């Protein structure tokens, strides 16, 4: 039996003749961090949206924890969460109120304890009673990450989670993610435009270009395959071929 918690097969998405994702297949093993790389428009975000059940694939299947996402949406999504620079949370609620709503949405027990833990872990004590509209972009990123890790996910999709964070907080976030991955056997699909971060965080990298997987392997394997010095050069080479 496969240890893959995420199994994507032949996944594609077409919008009015435009192919955003083109027959991709990949697995994510339990406790593995996979980096999803590619230039803008390569299909990374569309892939994540399909994995979250927000966009229906044109072809292909998505299975998580051995269940088909399309048929077992509720059961699957209970153990999946995401964070992205591009999402927000209700502005008129405080940080703690937003976390409480999310906790109830995911059916968590001991809600107050979970909130206290995540607030402490992500060093958000000073902002827990602050209105969300008053948060800086870095604080907002921490909040969306907090809501994602608080729900005890087995799989996390992170779309540029450190994009608007200062280096200190970004390092702390990365350390927390690595720690959770170790302790909870959390699987993570990670996108970033910071190549050093990708190399540091990812066990394996999937490189997307024009919706297709053009390279897959460890950072070292991908660099060697393209005959470049580092991941950044690989990225630039592929982006400029676009």
């Amino acid at each position: 039996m496969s240890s893959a918690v995420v199994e994507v097969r032949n996944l594609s998405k077409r919008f009015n003749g435009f192919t955003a994702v083109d027959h991709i297949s990949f697995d994510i093993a339990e406790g593995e961090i996979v980096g999803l790389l590619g230039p803008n428009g390569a299909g990374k975000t569309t892939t994540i949206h399909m994995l979250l059940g927000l966009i229906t694939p044109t072809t292909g299947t998505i299975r998580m924890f051995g269940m088909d996402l399309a048929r077992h949406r509720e059961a699957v999504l209970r153990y999946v969460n995401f964070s992205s620079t591009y999402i927000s949370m209700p502005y008129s609620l405080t940080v703690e109120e937003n976390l409480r709503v999310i906790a109830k949405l995911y059916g968590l027990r001991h809600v107050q304890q979970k909130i206290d833990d995540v607030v402490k872990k992500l060093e958000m004590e000073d902002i827990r009673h602050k209105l969300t509209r008053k948060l800086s972009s870095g604080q907002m990123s921490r909040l969306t990450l907090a809501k994602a890790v608080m729900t005890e996910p087995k799989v996390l999709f992170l779309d540029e989670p450190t994009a608007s964070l200062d280096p200190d907080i970004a390092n702390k976030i990365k350390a927390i993610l690595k720690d959770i991955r170790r302790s909870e056997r959390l699987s993570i699909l990670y996108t970033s435009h910071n190549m050093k971060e990708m190399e540091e965080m990812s066990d394996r990298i999937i490189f997307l270009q024009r919706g297709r997987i053009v390279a897959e392997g460890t950072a070292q394997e991908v660099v060697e395959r393209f005959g470049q010095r580092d991941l950044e050069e690989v990225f630039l080479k592929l982006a400029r071929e676009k």
Partner: protein
Amino acid sequence: MDPGRIGALLLRHVYLYKRSFARMLEVFYWPFLDLVVWGFITIYLARQGAQLHGAVTFFLGALILWDVLFRAQQGIALSFLEEMWARNLMNLFASPLTVGEYLVATMALSVLKVSAVGSLMTLFALIFYDYDIFMIGVALVPFVLNLLISGWIIGVLTTSIIMRFGQQAEVLAWGMVFLFQPISCVFYPLEVLPTALQHIAWLVPPAHIFEGMRTVLLSGTFPQAHLLWATSLNLAYLTVIVAWFYRTFQVCKDRGLLVRVGE
């Protein structure tokens, strides 16, 4: 259907309303102003000795019942807009929350809104105009329930259009219900309408409710036929509109609109 997830959505709106002056205005200020204006109109008509039998009773009763419909519709449509404005739809629909739970939560929210607005208007009408809506009697209960369902139907229809066409359609959250007002015969009897419109009005549940209200107030008889028609039509339309919402939701997921709505 998970009550916890429905409760989570309600909690989110309770947090929003308790802190938002603008939202509280929507619940208290506008209904109060409506009542003041229509109250004076009815007093004026009564003083003119108009041939309108029980003008005060008709107009104020109709106004309070119309607000039940209006607020029920807004409870659904505005809660979707709130999520759209807050860019929170992805958080909701990437969670285990189902479409059915979302709809039930917005319907429950509309009940809370209607209860608040209805209680307030009833109280103000009693204090300022010595008008007691409960003079309608036991028929008031099925009237209110039917108007609530009619509000849900228009609210779900509005929400599905906003979800499909995005921000450019958000004005419908305030305007759609007024499309139904002329043929709902809120402030005048159905016989006033041209014949062709009368045929259409008979297919509109609120028209039966407002006709029923006038029947009760004029003759004191229980409007059984009107209530039967209103209930049957409401249940049929509600079934169709919920199926339509599910379909629209699927279309939005197919076209990638759900993640872009509000942009």
